């Protein structure tokens, strides 16, 4: 709780960026919950490593998740756990020519025909893949 209140103070200081920080905070809380739940189920004393998969379209920033993970995991079984984040690039399909491509930053039109997007195929992933415990 002590750490959470310092996070709150920090967020108030950052004011205009608080919405950005807050997103990673709640997601990292959930991430830690999932990790601890599975660690306890496996009767683990300690979590050594957490393998997380994050799609680029989620907009989550690795450094920010790492920052909150270090803060929130203090005093838990995951305190010393390393966070390994696998990023999944965004992948979409063109409505027009059905080509699959990775959209460029700020330009989501098809590189072949300029068409619009039919479906997002990848990049929305957000899950804990596995944990390493002892």
């Amino acid at each position, binding site marked *: 709780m002590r750490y959470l209140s310092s996070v709150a103070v920090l967020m108030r200081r950052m*004011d*205009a960026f608080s*919405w950005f920080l807050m997103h990673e905070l*709640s*997601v990292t*809380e*959930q*991430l830690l919950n*999932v*990790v601890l739940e*599975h*660690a306890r189920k*496996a009767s*683990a004393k300690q979590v*050594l490593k957490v393998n*997380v998969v994050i799609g680029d379209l989620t907009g989550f920033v690795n450094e920010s998740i790492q920052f909150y993970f270090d803060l929130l995991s203090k005093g838990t079984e995951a305190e010393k756990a390393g966070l390994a984040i696998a990023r999944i690039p965004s992948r979409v399909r063109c409505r027009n020519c059905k080509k699959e491509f990775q959209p460029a930053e700020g330009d989501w039109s098809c590189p072949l025909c300029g068409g619009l997007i039919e479906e997002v195929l990848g990049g929305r992933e*957000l*899950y*804990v*893949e*596995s*944990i*390493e*415990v*002892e």
Partner: protein
Amino acid sequence: MKKVEVITPILNANDLVAQENQGLLKSYQIMAVNLMASPGAGKTSLILKTGKALKGRVRLGVVEGDVASRIDADKVAAADIPVIQINTGGECHLEALTVQKALKALPLSEIDILFIENVGKSHLSRRISTRRNDSHRRRQRAGGR
């Protein structure tokens, strides 16, 4: 050392409520459109014009997000479109829970397309540039422009 398979999605509370909202909209066969743009871009105008163009054919509903006022909601209500106003009071956008409250207050069985007029996020940039606004206000008070 032991490796434990987890494969569990990380959903925050907002995602869970958002899923409920999606289920609710689906059960009423409502298409929801989330409108996001900077203040003054024309979100309300687009809704009003769409309402006019589709009058008698498609029934619209609107959730109006605004930081403080209900100017836009009044405009939409004047066009005979069911509207619920949400004042976020400084929050930068509508969260799933606030949208859910609005959904429960709307006549969902009488709506085909629901527009969610979100708060233009750039009111945040206005906060960043408060200093400039302050000096502007000071100039106004001094009688200049």
